[in-house]
């Protein structure tokens, strides 16, 4: 029997799945050696058999068993929670795929507000009236959770999106019953820019391009952090560019931290503030410091402000 794979996308954007498809023919080769039992983006396996009897729309979610399950996206409403639990129950090895699944990702920025505030803003902007809210849809949870906050996860594979080759390597390793090799090094480890060890005393916003000669390769460009641009490379897990230049740096723009912290339990905000302070950079020149948790606001790190004035 072929090993069975099961895929789900929860509170995400399908970017992880697109990255997987970017493997091209290699992915088709993999598909030929496994049985895909559930993958709503690409195949028609449903949560319930609609013909099995009267459905009131509240039926339980039934998923097939699989050797490997991949869940992208975080968990933000009651239905996603049901699906996450069903995936855990049915998959021998469960992979949290992408930064939404591993750390909450961009959608966890919502955690700076209550779900009531979010609904009011989205459905009744500027109206003093209480918003007319959709009622017949899965209720929002109090916040956006990473998958591992809700169910046990065996392998965490961050990235927004994860590097296509890395996804294949992890799946292939699991098919060989080996542990996937996930290094925990920072983005700076593979960044070839020139570092002189001292930078500016303040940070500037990214309103004008970095200083570099486009005719010269990236290794002739000065480190963006040293140029006074906020670059999250030092506190962000590397791997986006494989062993080569990190992807954002190739576009000559600073890293924003999309792989989450270097160590799985790390805190990008604290780590970055410490890093700035120890390099003599005034953290007050940063606008919107909470954005240092732009990709890792799950695990309770981003919270609504409680009647106290935020410093920014």
């Amino acid at each position, binding site marked *: 029997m072929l090993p069975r794979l099961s895929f789900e996308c929860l509170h995400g954007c399908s970017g992880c799945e697109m990255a997987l498809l970017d493997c091209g023919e290699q992915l088709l080769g993999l598909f030929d050696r496994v049985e895909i039992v559930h993958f709503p983006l690409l195949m028609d396996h*449903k949560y319930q058999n609609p013909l099995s009897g009267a459905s009131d729309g509240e039926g339980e979610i039934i998923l097939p068993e699989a050797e490997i399950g991949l869940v992208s996206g975080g968990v933000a409403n009651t239905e996603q929670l049901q699906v996450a639990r069903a995936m855990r129950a049915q998959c021998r090895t469960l992979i949290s795929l992408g930064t939404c699944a591993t750390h909450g990702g961009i959608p966890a920025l919502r955690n700076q507000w209550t779900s009531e505030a979010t609904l009011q803003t989205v459905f009744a902007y500027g109206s003093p009236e209480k918003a007319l809210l959709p009622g017949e849809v899965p209720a929002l949870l109090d916040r956006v959770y990473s998958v591992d906050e809700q169910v046990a996860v065996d392998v965490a594979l961050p990235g927004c999106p994860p590097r296509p080759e890395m996804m294949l390597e992890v799946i292939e390793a699991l098919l060989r019953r080996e542990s996937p090799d996930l290094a925990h090094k920072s983005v700076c480890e593979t960044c070839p820019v020139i570092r002189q060890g001292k930078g500016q005393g303040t940070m500037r916003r990214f309103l004008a391009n970095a200083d570099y000669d486009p005719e010269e390769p990236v290794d002739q460009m000065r480190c963006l952090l040293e140029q006074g641009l906020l670059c999250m490379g030092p506190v962000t897990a590397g791997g986006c560019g494989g062993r080569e230049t990190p992807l954002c740096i190739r576009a000559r723009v600073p890293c924003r931290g999309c792989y989450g912290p270097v160590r799985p339990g790390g805190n990008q905000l604290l780590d970055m503030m410490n890093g700035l302070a120890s390099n003599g950079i005034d953290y007050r020149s940063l606008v919107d410091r909470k954005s240092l948790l732009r990709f890792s606001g799950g695990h309770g790190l981003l919270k609504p402000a409680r009647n106290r004035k935020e410093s920014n």
Partner: protein
Amino acid sequence: MPKSQVVSIHPVTRIEGQARVDIHLDESGRVSDARVAISALRGFEQFVIGRPAEEIPRIVSRICGICPWMHHLAAVKAVDGCFGAVPPPTGQLLRELCQVIAHIHDKILHFFFLAAPDFVLGPDGDYSVRNIMGLVRQEPELAARVARMRQLGQAMLARFAGKSIHPVAGVAGGFSKPMLETERRELAADALVLLDFASFALDYAKRSVFSRFREELQSLGAITTGFLGAVDAQGNLRLYDGLLRLMRPDGSWVDFPASDYERHLAEQVEPWSYAKMVYAKSWGEGFSLNPAAPMGVYRVNTLARLNVCDQVATPRAQAELEDFRAQFGRPAQGTLLYHWARLIELVYACERTVELLADERITDPLVRTPAESKAGRGIGHVEAPRGTLIHDYSTDDNGCITRANLIVGTTHNIAPMNLSVRQAAASLICDGEVSESILNRIEMAIRAYDP
């Protein structure tokens, strides 16, 4: 004893989002209602508030991992507007180049990976085979070529702009890096390969797919609506910019700049969906999903754009548009014709890519005008694969977001998708008899819209 019941399709599959369909049957087994509910809400309009506007293009890209370039670029345009930044011509050209290239992989994905299994393997086939994996087994050479070509489009973006999924190179005031001559030459060579493929894809579909589904193209999920898309001052199809053209079901239209969208369009909330519905406010008839007499309903996305434009400015796509119009008229209303229009747009996107890469201004090193953070309002528009996309931001004196309104492509099509599903369900379900094949045909009406 028969009683009223609800049949659910949950989740709708081979689409790019999370949705379910609930079909309501009355005591006599007739369809009394059918709804497409979008079940996820992420709240971008909330959590961009307070953040520096120039950072927003790197946040809202995560609205959609399939069309991140669209949100990225609508956002940089809106931020340009807030800050009064005017990108240099080459900054605009590079943005447009990336946007049209990003349309290519999307159309290949949509037609071949998601929709084609219904046509090539048959709408009534076993669900475990009726998918891209089944296509690989039945047509291995075609599937391999399709996978390669989609990957090539993505690789072009990654090679030039660092990231293809969740891009970073569009910036307030222009683009983050210029294009070198060596890059231009390599991309131009790849663009020709994609153009060849696009022509092949449309020929293949006309010959082997659409010809076998003549009846369904016109009848499945068929409704009569208006259309919205973008054109330039000469009425040519535009994806990156242009005037919005809102066409009534009778084919008459008005043109207006995207910045005037609030005078023409309005949003409505329904209790059964997290997606708001947009309707044509300026028609003055209000909004109704009554299948017998819908009001305010128009459609966006490929079929809409080909209906509203007078012509296409590139030769191969124009020839295909003429052929299409000769067969289906203007405006064409058949819902499955979205697929045909999608492949014509694929040809256009490839031709436009070739054209932009031949423009000698594309390698000009001046790609960004430094921006200044300040208070303002900006409305950014692009035509996304799924339709007209509008980002509307306001900023405070510090250049941070105070308000954001986003109208994404799918939102416009929620109302018509509901009407199409209702029409498909009502015409396919008799006496309460429902089968997997019928349910899949109902989903085919949704897949045409590419939600």
